[in-house]
C-alpha cells in the first residue's frame, strides 16, 4: 500500500546518488562477508585437513562459483570506484555542477574493467578446466 510516511521508499523513484549510496552499503557488506568466508576457506587446510581443502577448492573452481566470482569482482569494482567518487566529491571536485558526469565516468570505468574480467574468465565459466 502507498503510505505517506514512506511514500519515497519506492526504489523506482530513487535517483542516481541514492542508488550509489545504497549499493555502496550492500557491496560493503558483501565484501566483509566474502573476507570472512575467504579466511575460513583458506584455513580449512589446517582446521579440517588437506582432503577437505582440496575438495573445497575443487568445488570453488566449478563454473558456478567462477560466475559468482564475477559478481564479487563487480562488488569490488563498484565499491572502489564509488569510493573514489566520494573522495573526489569531498575534495570539492565535481560537486557543484558535474556530479552526474562524475557518476557516469566512474561507473563507465568500473563497467569497462568488469567487461575485461568477464572476457578473461568466460572460457573457464563455460567449462574450460582451470589447471592443466
Amino acid at each position, binding site marked *: 500500500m*502507498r*503510505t*505517506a*510516511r*514512506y*511514500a*519515497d*521508499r*519506492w526504489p*523506482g*523513484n530513487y*535517483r*542516481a*546518488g*541514492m542508488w*550509489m*549510496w545504497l549499493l555502496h552499503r550492500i557491496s560493503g557488506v558483501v565484501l566483509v562477508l566474502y573476507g570472512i568466508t575467504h579466511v575460513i576457506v583458506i584455513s580449512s587446510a589446517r582446521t579440517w585437513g588437506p582432503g577437505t581443502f582440496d575438495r573445497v577448492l575443487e568445488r570453488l573452481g566449478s563454473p558456478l562459483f567462477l560466475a559468482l566470482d564475477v559478481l564479487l569482482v563487480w562488488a569490488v569494482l563498484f565499491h572502489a570506484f564509488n569510493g573514489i567518487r*566520494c573522495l573526489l*566529491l*569531498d575534495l*570539492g571536485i565535481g*560537486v*557543484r*555542477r558535474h*556530479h552526474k558526469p562524475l557518476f557516469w565516468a566512474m561507473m563507465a570505468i568500473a563497467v569497462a574493467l568488469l567487461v575485461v574480467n568477464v572476457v578473461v574468465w568466460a572460457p573457464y565459466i563455460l567449462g574450460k578446466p582451470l589447471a592443466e
Partner: protein
Amino acid sequence: MTEQATLYVFRYDPDADGTPHFDRFTVPWQKGMTVLDGLYHVLDHQDGSLSFRASCREGVCGSCAMYISGAYRLACQTLLENLPGREATVNPLPHLPVLKDLVVDMEPFFRQYQRIMPYLKPSEPPPDKELLQSPKQRHVLNIHIDCILCAACHSACPLTWADKDFVGPMALNKAYRFAADSRDAARKERMRLIDPSVWKCHTVFNCTEACPKSIPITTAIESLRHMALVQRLKFWQR
C-alpha cells in the same frame, strides 16, 4: 466537455477513523493549472474537509512542499500537464509526522534550524556603521540564500530519516550561508555548532535533487567541511 485532471490524494484524519487512505478526485483542467490549483478546486467544490498548507501560490513561501508523483515538489510549482496522464499522486512530505491529510508537523525541521544560529553575528563590539559588502562578497551567497524553508530536502535525506541528531541539509546550507557571509564574525562558533553533523553527509545528493530552488546543498556541505577542516588545522587559534 471540459478536460480533466486526476488527483490521488493521501487522506488521514486522526480524529475520525485514523486509517490512512487515498481519495481520487477529478477536477476540470485548463492549461497552466498547478497541483495546488487542483487541491483548491477539491477544497472549494468537492471536499471541504481536505487539509493542506499553502500561502503564496508562487514558490516563495515554502508552505506547499509535498511528495507528488514520485518526487519532492512544491504543489504550486508543479503543472498538472507535466505529469503523465495529467494524474497527480499527492503525498504529504515523507518522514515527517502527518497531522492531517497533507499537513505535516514541521517541528523536527525547525528545531534543526534553530540549532545553527540562523542570524548574522557581527564582531564584538558591534560596528557603529552598517557593514558594507562588495558585489563580489555578495556573489558568494547567491543561490544559497534562496532557501524558502520548505523542508523538501530534510524529508528527502536518508541521513535525517535515521539520525534525529543530524541537523539536516537545510540547516547545513543555512550554516554555510552565514559562515560564508563577509559580515559574519562567528565562523568558529558555527563550526562548533555543525560538528559532527557536517561530517555525516554521504553525498547522496537527494537534497540537491529535491530542492525546488535548485540550491546546490551538497556543495554547501562540502564547502562547510573545508571551512571546518581549516579551522581545525589552525591549532594556534583554537
